[in-house]
């Protein structure tokens, strides 16, 4: 694993790099959670005001967009749930890109493995 012997100059440099990564992660999580909360609330409000029922199952993948375009609550709720699930996955994807940008190959590799495991999980599910 990485060994870091820190001189003051090095630690200053590290802090700057760290801030880049942390700002990226902070904003990715914040944007994801905001969009999904907005979509979930929209779906519920739509259901209350139009009286359309909310089914107990999520629609098939090819039905999600038609449901959304028809302004049915389940369309908004499903996309909201998917954005919520995708947020941490996109966060990992963003980390891979950021480590590649920083030429930190070791951590680019580590985060890429995490991404592969999640993708494998999608296919095994």
């Amino acid at each position, binding site marked *: 694993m990485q060994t870091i012997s820190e001189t003051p100059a090095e630690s200053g440099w590290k802090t700057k790099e760290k801030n880049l990564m942390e700002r990226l992660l902070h904003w990715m*999580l914040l944007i994801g959670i905001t969009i999904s909360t907005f979509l979930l609330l929209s779906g519920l409000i739509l259901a209350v005001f139009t009286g359309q029922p909310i089914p*107990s199952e999520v629609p098939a993948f090819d039905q999600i967009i038609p449901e959304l375009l028809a302004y049915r609550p389940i369309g908004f709720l499903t996309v909201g749930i998917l954005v919520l699930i995708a947020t*941490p996955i996109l966060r990992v994807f963003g980390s891979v890109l950021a480590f590649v940008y920083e030429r930190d190959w070791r951590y680019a590799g*580590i985060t890429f493995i995490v991404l592969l*495991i*999640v993708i494998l999980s999608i296919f095994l599910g």
Partner: protein
Amino acid sequence: MENMLLIALIGLGVGILGSMMGIGGGVLIIPLLTGLFGLPIKTAIGASIISVIATSSAAGAVYVGKGLTNTRLAMVMEIATTLGAMAGGITAILLKPNLLFAIFGIVLLYVSYNMGRPQKQDTNPSPTGLMDESYIDPQSGKPVQYGIQKLPAGLGISFLAGNISGLLGIGGGVIKVPVMTLLMGMPMRAAVATSNFMIGITAATSAVIYYQNGYINPQIAVPTALGVLFGAQIGSRIAGRMRNQQLKQLFRWLLLFFSLQMFYRAITGGG
């Protein structure tokens, strides 16, 4: 619709109480959804895992912004937690409900026991040369430096925590945080922030399995997730003011009661 409102309110209560007690909502929400509404445990697990992702992302954004999260350590340990979650998610789909109830009962017993242990003070965190990190302690305003010890053992426990998370739809922080502080030498604040950060991707790994197998019921999952999310925002704001020892004791009895309820459901068929 009335049920959805009730579920959202329960989620709100769980979010407040959970964040005040420093645990995720999963250990509370699953007994409540199965007990009060008679929902199948896999539907409750599906709803819980969605709310776990929501709270992890929301709190994660705050912790990362404050610089408390050891993001590099998190990314290494995530290899173990996501592998565990994948195995746990697949196992949960295959297992009979009464077996899931029994395992949940055991985990609740552990959480209840763990809350009763006296909280050990940080064991003087110091740099070890392995993934050394530092952060500014929000209370003292002073920088805290620490390094990581016993990473291989930590990875092993992370796999287990991810496995339990995928299997039961809980965050798994109750397993990781004690290991990170007592074994790996991390300060409490950094351990909580780092564990929380890992929970999002861990839960997402099993959530995709639950989603594809039809265990994400929008009627249940949406009000649960929104309720817990807003509750956690409230709870984290009043948490500092109410570290009540009696409240904690009451909470332990509640978990014990839930545990017995889970064992009862395991014996009576689970349904």
